[in-house]
């Protein structure tokens, strides 16, 4: 009971604090821009790193927070000049479920706390991203706004600010190239596979890109005829994988068996006819050889995503077809033989009963 009271008090305090903060008398923007409005305003931290402290008023006015005052977010700033270095802004001051100022919020935020980023931040990792690292700070805009850091086309660049190598790979990949060069909206960006607030490490069994979940992640697009049809790509690749030894072992929880990414690559996926692709015909021995020791060019002779039910499978199709009919005809023959035998036995037993042969 006392725990309930304690929880109630904590929630009440939190709500009260939130209301107080959001309705607190805002500090006039002018006061801050005396210093922060100067383009050269900067500070040098202990490690010698130069940090610009200039805030472009125009950018702020173009953001979703145009009506907010500096201290709405920088609530710990209470005096000018600041004797204590202002802390990193905490968005949850306003963005919590049921907040009274109408700051947008959804349950996704809770997922951040459990995500690889949220946990790293909670563990005190300095460069772990907070909200503003992805969403932007003074320039924050709705994700539907092309100027936003989290506008679909801009997501790879935003994630790439920390994940530099991965961004470099993605940019060259079939997906990244289509997005960046052609503005293609069908190709996946980082969040399409990894999730957004709920991003987990690929080694976490809950992750959408955990080895046994990769096929499902790819299937969202690659099993969709409506998307694949546009580019002349087969949409059965995931289905044929599911039917293969790799797919079955994956389904039953093997984490070492090959998934889509094991052969095609992850961020560096290329077209199969691109000589740099891991599934380019000359590269297949090397790619398969990562698991199958001594793999040679034999691994490339024959269709990889083979579906025995399709004519394109060639000899595999015909052998399966022949066996199917052999089985069906054998079964018909055997059942007919059994029926005839039963019929004969019935006739014999009638004869025995009546002592007379059937007419």
């Amino acid at each position, binding site marked *: 009971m006392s725990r309930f009271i304690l929880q109630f008090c904590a929630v009440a305090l939190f709500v009260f604090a939130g209301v107080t903060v959001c309705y607190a008398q805002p500090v006039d923007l002018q006061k801050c821009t005396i210093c922060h409005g100067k383009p050269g305003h900067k500070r040098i931290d202990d490690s010698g790193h130069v940090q610009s402290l200039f805030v472009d008023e125009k950018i702020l006015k173009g953001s979703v927070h145009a009506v907010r005052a500096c201290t709405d977010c920088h609530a710990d700033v209470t005096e000018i000049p600041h004797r204590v270095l202002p802390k990193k802004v905490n968005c949850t001051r306003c963005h919590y479920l049921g907040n009274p100022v109408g700051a947008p919020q959804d349950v996704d935020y809770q997922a951040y706390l459990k995500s690889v980023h949220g946990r790293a931040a909670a563990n005190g990792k300095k460069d772990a991203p907070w909200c503003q690292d992805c969403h932007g700070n003074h320039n924050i805009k709705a994700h539907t706004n092309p100027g936003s850091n989290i506008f679909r086309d801009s997501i790879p660049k935003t994630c790439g600010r920390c994940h530099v190598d991965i961004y470099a790979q993605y940019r060259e990949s079939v997906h990244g190239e289509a997005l960046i060069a052609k503005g293609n909206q069908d190709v996946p960006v980082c969040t399409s596979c990894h999730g957004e607030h709920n991003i987990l490490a690929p080694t976490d069994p809950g992750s959408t890109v955990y080895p046994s979940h990769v096929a499902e992640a790819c299937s969202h697009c690659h099993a969709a005829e409506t998307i694949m049809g546009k580019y002349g790509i087969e949409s059965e690749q995931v289905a044929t994988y599911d039917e293969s030894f790799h797919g*079955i*072992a994956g*389904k*039953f*929880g*093997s984490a070492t068996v090959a998934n889509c990414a094991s052969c095609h690559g992850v961020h560096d996926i290329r077209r199969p006819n691109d000589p740099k692709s891991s599934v380019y015909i000359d590269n297949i021995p090397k790619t398969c050889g990562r698991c*199958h*020791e*001594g*793999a*040679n060019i*034999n*691994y*490339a*002779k*024959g*269709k*990889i995503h*083979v579906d*025995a039910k399709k004519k394109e*499978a*060639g*000899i*595999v199709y015909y*052998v*399966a077809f022949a*066996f*199917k009919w*052999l*089985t069906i005809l*054998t*079964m018909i023959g*055997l*059942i007919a*033989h*059994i029926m*005839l*035998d*039963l*019929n*004969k*036995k019935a006739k014999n*037993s009638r004869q025995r009963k009546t002592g007379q042969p059937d007419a």
Partner: protein
Amino acid sequence: MPSKENDAAAGQAPSVAVGKSLNDEMEITRFSLNFRIQHIVLFTSLIVLGITGLSLMFHDNWLATLIIRLEGGVEIRGLIHRVAAVVLIAGSLYHVFYVMFTEAGHTEFMKLKPGRKDFSDFRQALKFDLGLSDKEPVFEKFDYVQKFQYGGVVVGVATMIFSGFILWFETPSMAVVPKWVIDVTLIVHGYEGLLAFLILFLWHQYNVHLNPTVFPMDRAWLTGRISLKDLKEKHYLEYEEVVRKSQDNE
């Protein structure tokens, strides 16, 4: 008196004790102990192979999924399948040895050899079953159905062992053969397994269990014996030979 079960004599013409007249309740040896043990090894390994193999082939089916989970996942499933395969291979090798180098085995094997009579028997049985003829075919120790089943098992097991080896040692295999051969091998292994399963499950079940004359079970696989009454009914030519031998002995 039925002949004493005598393994050394098994496979040869059944002997009936001297000086006694034959009656229907007498039994003769049909399968020697050695033969019965081979049969048990064969069907035990085939059942295990069938369950583990078909559950992989139809892994989307809920029952197959359940079986694989009960077996402890795909890797343990594979292990069980291969252990059973080794048992089958050992049994098969022993059988080849048995029919080639033992007199009992060889005599039995020669009786299983298909001949012209089997085809005419089959035609005659069809005619009789369809009511086109009043003459029922009579058989020796093994009728055409039993010979067909034996032949089917020999061909099926040989195919399964050969294709199974290719798939078991897929990395060394692929050093030699291209991927499409592996794909074909997988199809052959799966469909041949399914065919064998259906034949055994349907036809053999009917012949030795569900058939009204033997229901619920023909006990010959356990006791190795068959009564003269049944012999007369099902293998009349062998029965005649038994009678002739018994008369010769008198």
